């Protein structure tokens, strides 16, 4: 594949955007989820709106994003964030509300409060569930990114795909598709699986072998 040079560069560009967008959505989504699980006020006010927004396919954010941010990187990153932040938040909220109340009671009797409680007890206790949400959020982010790059041509793997179509180069299109699948598999089956295994071993959720 003569694409090799361009493929590498495009992959790096796509993954860079993905990393930015994903990191942002985790940084926003997890606290949002914790807030939703712990605050009755938040739940009764903002949550219905968030649930509604989650029903919007991420690509529908693209026109708005271009209008707001113009034709640049921020627009794509915005789409990626909006695609994944809500699923991460919802999974986090679920996970936090299912934490064993005995652990929370234990923490409160030991005098663990405030930030130490939220970061040191609540989050770790909910982490196995949050990890599932992170995995889901990643696949949404990846899809949103590809859709965005295809429509809004600005470098990256999506652009290579679009280019291949325009040049009627099936080999290029398929080559890029293989690359996209490979990245998806790598992250899903390797990175996230390793994370899950580590979590389950450490948290004692698997049988010791």
């Amino acid at each position: 594949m003569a694409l090799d040079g361009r493929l590498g560069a495009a992959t790096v560009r796509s993954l860079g955007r993905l990393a930015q967008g994903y990191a942002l959505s985790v940084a926003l989504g997890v606290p949002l989820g914790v807030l939703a699980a712990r605050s009755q006020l938040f739940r009764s006010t903002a949550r219905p709106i968030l649930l509604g927004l989650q029903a919007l396919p991420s690509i529908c954010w693209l026109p708005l994003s271009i209008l707001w941010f113009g034709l640049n990187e921020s627009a794509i990153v915005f789409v990626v964030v909006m695609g994944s932040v809500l699923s991460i938040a919802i999974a986090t909220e679920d996970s936090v509300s299912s934490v064993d109340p005995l652990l929370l009671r234990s923490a409160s009797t030991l005098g663990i409060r405030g930030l130490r409680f939220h970061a040191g007890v609540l989050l770790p206790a909910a982490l196995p569930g949050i990890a599932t949400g992170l995995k889901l959020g990643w696949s949404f982010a990846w899809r949103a990114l590809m859709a965005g790059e295809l429509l809004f041509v600005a470098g990256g793997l999506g652009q290579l795909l679009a280019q291949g179509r325009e040049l009627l180069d099936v080999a290029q299109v398929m080559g890029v598709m293989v690359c996209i699948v490979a990245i998806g598999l790598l992250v899903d089956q390797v990175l996230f699986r390793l994370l899950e295994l580590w979590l389950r071993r450490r948290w004692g959720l698997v049988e010791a072998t």
Partner: protein
Amino acid sequence: MLWPFRKRCGPGGLLVPWKGRQERAKIAVRRLGHTFRQRRSEVVALQDVDIDVHSGQFVCLLGPSGCGKSTLLYALAGHLIPSGGQISIDGRAVDGPSPDRLLLFQQPALFPWLTVRQNLVFPLRAKGLPRATSEQIAREFLGRVELTGFEDVLPHQLSGGMRSRVALARALAMDPAVLLMDEPFAALDAQTRAHMHQLLASIWTRDRKTVVFVTHNVREALVLGDRVVVMAGQPGRVLQDLEVRLPRPRDPDDSRLVQLSRQIRDALARPEEPPRLLRPTVLRTDSPEETLRDQPPRPEPGALPAGRPRRLGARF
């Protein structure tokens, strides 16, 4: 026949009504009452409970399921706001959970992602102690519960008994003013439980912490306690407040202890009668079954029903 002047009972005055002390009580419970309001019914979990616990006493709250002993304990711990009455510890009203009145639950409730050592160090650091001191205290208390060498093990790799020991070490390391224990050995098998009794008794004899221990097991109460507060349910109330004068260390198979446990069980079997402990007891040939007849099921310990339970972790 009634023997109204004989305030003794049992073999040689080993189980006598508690007479109280002049000095100010460490824990003062006054006219405590609590009602759980459910959709169509009310359960009077506690009614007019008055108890004083003095510094260094080991008090056992003994009674069948549903008699309100756990409700009383949770109110003492600040995990429950009672519907009526007052509780004060060291002269200050109880207004929420605090490591000064640490509660040990039926399940060890260790943090599963932390090693044994980290489970002890984490709350010590939360208390404000520097890392070096926390590590040292953790090591010391793990030694006292005979778990040296297990510091870097994760809780799920330990047996139930070992987890209970870690929970106990954690509670003791926090050095609370008052230690509250809600049937902490109920989930253990008889052998491990007996071992834990010995361990707890030996540690307690050394430190003389003020302990309030809830149990439904008469023998456990007699092996561990200086005082046994016998309770009954519906409505939850104190039947008798007895002082145990057996010398320590106590052997659970001691014939005197066994006889005392029979007396208490008899008294509990008929809560509506006036206390029969003032009369000479007729020894009954019973089965060795030590636990008491259950009353109607009470709420799960980890999930108290409505009635203004405390928001978990809401106090920053």
